[in-house]
């Protein structure tokens, strides 16, 4: 994010504040990607963002507060991408496929944001780990709304819905830790099969994935 010019520039105060806030959120994600939560300090975030410590504290009460804001912000960006992708799809399975495609593409493109959401969300500790849980749970309905039952069976139990979402998140977090964020889109067929099979059965899931 661009720094604003120094000195007198006649920009409105709110504009400056908003710009600083966005820079701080981006800087936090970058610091986390480089050195993890514990070693990311308020000074390091401010330095990277080009924002003074006192201006940091005008925006956020603490590092945790900055983390929560960055986290929520990132989750909403991901949600918007997922919703845009599955809107106007003709059926449930193709909607899920489109959403997963968009998700993996976004994760691969925004590596700092991806690490923030998938890895740091659970690692930042007690002050903030609720954010991860709430965010992940909020994605479950996108998978289950309109989900069918496999031929000759009934809808899987609720634990499956949550375990599918949690399982995908866990796999992707492990790929982040392995330094493979950029190649996540290559996992699409595998992840799609894992996510669709409980609702469609293996044969139908594979048919739809291979015809994408």
């Amino acid at each position, binding site marked *: 994010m661009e720094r604003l010019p120094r000195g007198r520039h006649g920009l409105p105060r709110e504009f400056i504040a908003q710009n600083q806030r966005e820079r701080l959120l981006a800087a936090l994600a970058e610091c986390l990607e480089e050195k993890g939560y514990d070693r990311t300090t308020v000074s390091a975030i401010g330095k990277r963002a080009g924002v003074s410590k006192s201006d940091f504290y005008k925006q956020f009460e603490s590092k945790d507060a900055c983390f929560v804001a960055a986290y929520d912000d990132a989750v909403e960006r991901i949600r918007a991408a997922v919703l845009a992708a599955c809107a106007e799809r003709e059926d449930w399975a193709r909607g899920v496929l489109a959403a997963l495609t968009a998700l993996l593409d976004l994760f691969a493109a925004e590596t700092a944001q991806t690490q923030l959401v998938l890895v740091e969300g659970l*690692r930042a500790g*007690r002050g903030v780990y609720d954010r991860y849980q709430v965010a992940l749970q909020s994605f479950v309905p996108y998978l289950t709304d309109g989900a069918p039952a*496999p031929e000759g069976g009934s809808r899987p139990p609720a634990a499956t819905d949550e375990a599918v979402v949690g399982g995908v*998140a866990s796999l992707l977090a492990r790929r982040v830790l392995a330094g493979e964020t950029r190649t996540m889109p290559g996992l699409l067929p595998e*992840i799609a099969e894992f996510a669709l099979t409980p609702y469609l059965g293996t044969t139908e899931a594979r048919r739809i994935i291979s015809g994408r």
Partner: protein
Amino acid sequence: MPPRPKGKPKPKAAAVPVRPALSREFIAGHKRRRIMDAIAELTAEQGYDATKIGDIVRRAGVARKTLYDNFEGKEEVFLAAFDTAVDEALARIEADCAEVEGDWEEKVKAGLASFLRYVAENPALARMCMIEALSATQTATERYEAAMQRFVDLTKRTVPQDDRLPETIEETLVGGVAWIVYQQIRRQEAEKAEDLLPELSEFMLAPFHGAAEAQKQANA
């Protein structure tokens, strides 16, 4: 854990031991274990950062020196407790799987049941390993990942190998199970983890033989 009696026992007139003396190794091992149990309980209650050495020795009922004779410091106590719990859980799961005479489905169910029982019987250890370890220290998070991999490998050894299935299937399954159990622990319901068995069995079996058949298996 009940408070331990303090102070030295009064010397007895008759020098006949009432019970055989415990060996030095036994006592040392027992103290080590009490220290590890204490850190599990304390981190489950208040988190890793808030847990101090003083809290640990008080809870374990050992001298500060005993702790430092056995461990370098807090992190080493935590990591030792983590490793012990993971080794113990995996050993039990493998033993329970090995006892099953039936097919792989039965082994998966037995292994899952064994895991859930371990969580139910050791709620503080489960919370420490599955939740607190993630945010404790860098090394702890690395151990967590390594432990996940051991569960993935165990799953791979138990399920049939099918080239048509996603290569990552065991990773997503283990991650999914871990997530459900994570939430169960966060709800303070680790003691009831075994209630999850039917649903999690179905979840784990589904990819290997189509969802409809998995339902029949899980309900059998």
